[in-house]
């Protein structure tokens, strides 16, 4: 399959990109690496009249350090995270997650922002950045607006972006040195999208005890406070096994999927992510 005929632009500034989007009206589509859009174009699942490639906008590949957070440009590649070329406010967790995304060829071109806007429920960043409670910076004609990732993704492949808007940056808070991160995903084949995935973030100093179940049919499922799952039966001396079994059953019983076997997988993925933070 070959794509339909389309115009291609590669603007150098955010306002130019917004202008192109507005000119194209509904027929324009942002490309931020093209690792999902490319195949969709070839399969003619996407038939835009105009492609606006935003990867040449310098502001979108920059990193800004704030006092308590780091803001990443949306067009920073997975490989840049994997290779440690950008700071990691989550103590190496971003680097670890990035290194497991698809294949190196995809990581070389695929970007963090592109992945979030594509919003495949089984994508690594969707689940892990939801666990980190990332805040998104959306470029608008008026300037920018900010939205939590949890509120940004509405459904599978559906995000809250109005016409003429695009994702410009991702703000991730700096976690404390004692923070612990767990992440487990199960893929049928190395590099494929996950069948089940879960992330856990524990940062007592910031009062964060968060678990996220990904690879669902829709948005990730957030467990805001999992403190009760961290202790075996309420006693800190209890073996982890009991805590993990409880966590597994808790998630499996949520009925995320129609299928009990898939639900059990979600539970097992969550238990394995949890295991990494309580081991």
């Amino acid at each position, binding site marked *: 399959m070959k794509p339909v005929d389309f115009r291609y632009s590669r603007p150098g500034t955010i306002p130019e990109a917004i202008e192109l989007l507005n000119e194209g009206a509904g027929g324009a589509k942002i490309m931020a690496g093209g690792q999902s859009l490319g195949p969709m174009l070839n*399969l003619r699942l996407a038939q835009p009249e105009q492609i606006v490639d935003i990867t040449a906008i310098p502001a979108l590949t920059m990193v800004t350090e704030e006092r308590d957070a780091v803001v990443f440009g949306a067009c920073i590649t997975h490989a840049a995270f994997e290779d440690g070329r950008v700071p990691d406010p989550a103590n190496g967790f971003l680097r670890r997650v990035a290194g497991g995304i698809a294949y190196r060829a995809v990581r070389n071109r695929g970007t963090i922002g592109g992945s979030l806007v594509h919003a495949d429920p089984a994508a690594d960043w969707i689940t892990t950045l939801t666990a980190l409670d990332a805040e998104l910076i959306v470029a608008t004609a008026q300037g920018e607006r900010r939205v939590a990732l949890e509120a940004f993704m509405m459904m599978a492949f559906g995000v809250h972006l109005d016409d003429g808007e695009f994702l410009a940056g991702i703000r991730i808070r700096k976690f404390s040195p004692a923070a612990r991160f767990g992440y487990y995903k199960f893929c049928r*084949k190395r590099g494929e999208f996950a069948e089940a995935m879960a992330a856990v973030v524990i940062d007592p100093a910031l009062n964060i005890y968060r678990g996220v179940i990904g690879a669902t049919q829709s948005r990730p499922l957030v467990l805001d406070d999992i403190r009760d799952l961290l202790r075996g039966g309420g006693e800190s001396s209890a073996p982890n096994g009991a805590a993990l079994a409880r966590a597994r059953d808790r998630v499996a019983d949520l009925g995320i999927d129609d299928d009990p*076997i898939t639900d059990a*997988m979600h539970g097992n993925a969550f238990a394995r992510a949890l295991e990494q933070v309580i081991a």
Partner: protein
Amino acid sequence: MNERANVGIGARLPRKEDDRLMRGRGLFVGDISMPGLQDVAFLRSPLAHGRIVSVDVPEDCAGRVFTSADMAGVKPIRAVSGLPGFKPSSQPPLATGTVRFAGELVAMCVDENRAQAEDLVSRVNVDIEALPVLADTGTAQAVDAVRVHEDWADNIYLETKIEKGDRAVLDNAAIKVEREIRLSRQCMAPLEGKGTVAWWDSRLDQLVVYTSTQLPHMMRTGLAECLGLEERQIHVVAPDVGGAFGFKCILQPEEVCIAWLAMTRRRPFRWLEDRREHLVAAANTREHHYRITGYADAEGRLLGIEADVAVDVGAYSVWPFSACLESAQIASILPGPYVMPYYACRTVSVATNKPPFTPYRGVARTGVCFAIELIVDAIAREAGREPSQVRLDNLVRPEQMPFTNITGKLFDSGDYPESVRKAVEAIDLPALRARQGSAGDDGRLLGIGFATYCEQAAHGTTVYSGWGIPMVPGFEQATARVTPDGGLELRIGVHSHGQGMETSMAQVANEILGIDPAQINLVHGDTALTPYSTGTWGSRSMVMAGGAVSRACEIIAERAKVIGAHLLQSSPDQVTVSDGKVMAAGGSVTFAEIANAWYKRPETLPADVAPEGLEVTAGYKPKVDSGTFSYATHAAVVAVDPEFGAVDILDYVVVEDGGTLVNPLIVDGQILGGVAQGIGTALYEESPYNADGQPLASTFMDYIIPGPCEVPDIRIVHMETPSPFTAHGVKGIGEGGAIAPPAAIANAINDALRPLGAEVATTPVTPHRLLSAIAEARAKAAGAVAQ
């Protein structure tokens, strides 16, 4: 005299063709370009079954869009079989009236490039009235089912029945195991898809077709039949072919369409299959459904097998192999390498609204091996014995060779039990059993599985004449020609598409003539340049074309001796050929000197020289043409994660006997590639269809093939028992690697699941299937406790 390294038969010579292929300098159909070349895209049926009400072509597209109405006079593809009761189908290149699977060609659109041709496709409106869909063999066999082919009485291409031995031996069977065993439909996914470029050569008044095929000569026949041309008017060339695996044996309707365009428009046209077309509409294969019962005594000695097998052959009978190749093979080879007093099998080849079934590397053997080997393991579990021991008790023994089995197959040579013993030793079964007995390290379950098979290859006239299909192989020919400077050209009608024949055929010639393989060229894949052949299929090329090359070179040697002896002032019976020279007691002359005499200095030739010169076409057929039998035992060690249903292959051993190995390095490559494909069948590859006959895996996102991380290091142990029937004792081994992995891996999984009482019997063993089996076993156990 310095001793030269052996570069003849048996040498691990690196492949000559790899220099160009690994540097990206191969020439595939997709690399061909020429002025005025037009690309073709096909409009394919969106429905699996329906009547075409109308195909609306916008007025401005006239002359660029073609339907079956434009192709009046072109005959449908019709692959018959002489087997009693067989119903042939007629497959028009573009659908006429009825569409019978989703993806069937309805119209073709032509433009300057593929993207624009696809634009045209999107502008053609096709209206199809939906008919009920037959998406599985069960539905299709219902008495009141709609017919895939309207004039048929039912949806069965062919039913076969075979019964051998006295069923009374089953009466006292201590062990009876009944299983329902399935192989899912899958694809072949060669690196290079199908592709065809065709044009009309007005000088030679010939249709020239460059196509990605294994059988250039057969394609010429097929195209001539469909297009109404004489075969002399068609020139078929198979350039470099990037993997074929049986898919590229088949005359595709797209090939007929492109050839028709070139013939009628007198311009060059091209179609390159894309991955989506391949996955949804092309190389469907493997879908067998077995209801099978194994009978054995208390020790697990086989008393008999009874089986009822359905093959989902899809909508059309493929040319030239027909819709019955798979099922007819199943009936005749299901007993595998085992000895048993009773055997009964019924097969049905069922028509459904799915793409046509195409024989894939291993052909029926992969399914048969999966079925019988799961049964052997089930019997072993019932008997409480090691599955490898039960195999040893049931396999044909070396002292019985050559052995005629219960279905009349003649096994040529070998020590089958020794392959099991070597596999047990190589995998270190005792150590693994000890490890299984100890506490698990990481919660995963360890399992060991074996599978033994034999692989009939290079089967010839006596086997195929009984089937009455469009293709019956006879003698195979090769041409050997000494060039004027003393090099050698070999011309063969089979085609190489990964088999390394440019190297291995040169090694055979070297064995006879001693000419350096570097000075030997192989010409193949071209109907204008090579002797006729049914082509490369059935692991036959090394046996058949290799035998013909050997024979042709022997004749060249005799003729060279006459000239050489004369130049050496000796006599032909006093000289020998070796090392690229004719040697006499007092000296030697090279092939270059002999060729120089023949081609450029005929005044120096002896009076009794053969006027046919240094060019020979020789024919060959093995003494016994019912086929060589390679065999192997595969052993797999797996770790099963019972929480996710993941299967990790920890170790994999292949003990294989392929007779004399012409190039063991190439054989290793064949085995490794085959095992990788077998792992795909075992664990990953599946083309599911929903009840509407819609394909659910249309990209590599949904159709999973194993990658480097999924294929473990595979350890190969060679045995070499020459075939008594063939030149140099070679046997065909091209398909073997892909035959046993599903069986060995599933047996290993079932060994791992034994403590849970669970068992899998369907390929691919996906996480979901594995976890379902565990859940089912747990539910059963809970039910038993409750009672």
